[in-house]
């Protein structure tokens, strides 16, 4: 789960990391009030879950409170990469002497936390990694022991941090490590960490992503979820306990298992791409595929008006295909889809399952034997509906 910039920075502050003394505004008047209280030049920053806000015009420097109101009016309601800006952060503008990059993330391959730091902060870290990878210092942390003092010294010296700043930098890094581990973050990033004109260190921008699997023990962070950018169908799925991701194709996919669900999407694209046809969603229905689950999944898929065909691909291992077939028919009668459906049941009791489907003689339903055949039939049906 991603936190907004302001949520990330307020979290940093709880762990003792200095941040600008800003506040969030939802209206231009609120922006004016916050800027007047701050009484100096401010930065008005769009709070949306996408990168590249600055380039999109979502970050502006205002000289006074009136200008802050004007910029807030421009930015609030703005569309940045498909997301509407609903909040802006009003931060006092910092005098910047140097910009530093500092982040802690999970090193998947090594199975441990990884600290990345660079004196060349401010820019996008992926860009820096492409252009000057040697400018990034990487240090792995023993997950059982945590961050050690010698590692702080190593990082500060290797990155070229001025000695006068080692102490304050070390204390910020230690705090960031605590924030990362105590919040179950998979990323805790300060970019930039600024050395101000007065020589102080200040976390000017921040990004925190929390491990979804740990939200059960992070209730305070879980409560900060901003679902405003989430498509309606994804919200419904989340509430029904179904893993669903909306895409922009025409074939609605219902599959058991994440790997097979991705593969089924890939197959629709493999055979449909030449005609501009592809998957409308990722959907993993999970283990059981009960009638209730199938019906919920079908409703979620059909809530997308672009869907021209539904492809159901179930490999029954422990799941029995005859039970899934019953579930599909129950769901079909309840939801009454008005688009064609291609059903492919394979594995345990597949022939019984297919017999149930064919005996029901539903005008809209076709059965397929292999995944290849199912994908080709779904693509053809979607083309016909165009």
């Amino acid at each position, binding site marked *: 789960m991603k936190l907004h910039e302001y949520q990330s920075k307020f979290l940093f502050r709880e762990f003792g990391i200095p941040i600008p003394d800003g506040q969030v505004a939802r209206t231009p008047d609120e922006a004016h009030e916050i800027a007047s209280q701050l009484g100096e030049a401010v930065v008005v920053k769009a709070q949306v879950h996408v990168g590249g806000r600055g380039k999109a015009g979502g970050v502006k420097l205002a000289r006074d409170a009136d200008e802050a109101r004007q910029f807030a009016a421009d930015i609030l309601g703005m569309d940045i990469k498909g997301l509407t800006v609903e909040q802006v952060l009003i931060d006092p503008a910092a005098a910047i002497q140097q910009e530093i990059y500092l982040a802690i993330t*999970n090193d*998947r*391959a090594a*199975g*441990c*936390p990884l600290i990345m730091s660079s004196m060349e902060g401010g820019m996008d*870290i*992926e860009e820096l990694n492409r252009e000057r990878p040697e400018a990034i210092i990487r240090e792995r942390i*023993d*997950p*059982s022991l945590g961050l050690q003092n010698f590692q702080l010294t190593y990082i500060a010296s290797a990155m070229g941090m001025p000695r006068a700043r080692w102490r304050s930098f070390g204390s910020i890094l230690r705090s960031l490590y605590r924030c990362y*581990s105590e919040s*179950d973050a*998979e990323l805790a990033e300060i970019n930039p960490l600024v050395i101000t004109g007065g020589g102080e260190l200040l976390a000017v921008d921040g990004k925190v992503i929390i*491990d*979804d*699997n*740990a939200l*059960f*023990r992070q209730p305070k962070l879980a409560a900060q979820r901003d679902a405003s950018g989430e498509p309606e169908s994804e919200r419904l799925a989340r509430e029904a306990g179904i*893993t669903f*991701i909306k*895409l922009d194709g025409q074939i609605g996919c219902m*599959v*058991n*298992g*994440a*790997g*097979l*669900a*991705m*593969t089924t*999407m*890939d*197959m*629709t*694209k*493999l055979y449909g791409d030449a005609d501009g046809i*592809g*998957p409308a969603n*990722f959907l*993993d229905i999970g283990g059981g595929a009960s009638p209730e689950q199938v019906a919920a999944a079908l409703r979620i898929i059909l809530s997308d008006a672009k869907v021209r065909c539904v492809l159901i691909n179930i*490999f029954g*291992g*422990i799941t029995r295909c005859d039970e899934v077939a019953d579930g599909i028919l129950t769901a079909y009668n309840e939801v009454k889809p008005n688009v064609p459906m291609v059903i492919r049941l*394979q*594995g*345990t009791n597949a022939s019984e399952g297919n017999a149930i489907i064919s005996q029901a003689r539903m005008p809209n339903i076709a059965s397929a034997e*292999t*995944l*290849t055949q199912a994908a080709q039939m779904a693509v053809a049906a979607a083309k016909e509906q165009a």
Partner: protein
Amino acid sequence: MSILIDRNSLVLVQGITGRQGGFHARLMMAYGTQVVGGVTPGKGGEWFESAPVFDTVRAAVQTTNADTSLVTVPARFAPDAVMEAADAGIKLIICLTEHIPVADMMKVVAFCKRRGSRLIGPNCPGVMTPGQAKVGIIPAMVAEPGNVGVVSKSGTLTYEVGFAMKNAGIGISTIVGIGGDPVIGTTFVDVLEMFENDPETEKVALLGEIGGSAEIVAADYIKNCMTKPVAAFIAGRSAPPGKRMGHAGAIVDGGEGSADEKIQALEAAGARVANNPEAIPSLLA
């Protein structure tokens, strides 16, 4: 021969009195796996079918000499259960549990390494040596004994490919589901190395997906260390970047971990990469 498990493996099921654990323990027994005991704290002294139930893994190992353990307990208790098994000297721990926090897994994986235990998973379907034993939830019907090793990040996709191989008359030495989480106990390379050294495995099928770099590292290993042919499929070519596709580890992040870069690396390493999982058998023929 085979890798990891065979008919002589002595298997414990942690969580055997739970609904999932019990259901799969029965199927494992029916397949011929030697399930010598179960562990559920507070239920020691009870029986599950022919298997005694113990309060602790340590007590179970003392009585049964178990060398393998299947962890089927819920995510909140699974890290502790895996460490308990490693601490009791279990050499092979297979953890099916999904949704374990990564921070916990990093500690657990490090602990298992220190204790000299091999962990498979978490968030995996388990291991099966067709005709001999299965530890986990892989359905018996998806494979016959043979000489192709299968290693995969995913469950049902593996069943799909196993079933297609069976229909084409191709048998399997061992199937290893390594799991779809970002931090796992055993990687593609670990399993490829075991298959390379297993005299009964002649070819290998590798089923990967988007996210992380494990397939790229595997490609390096295939290029530099493997003599046996490898066929591969990578799921998620049509997945958009920045979205987590069901598995916690399946996310293209900052341009890294895409299906295309993995396919390119595997092809450059000499592996045959299918664009359709049902084409895997023809690449192994």
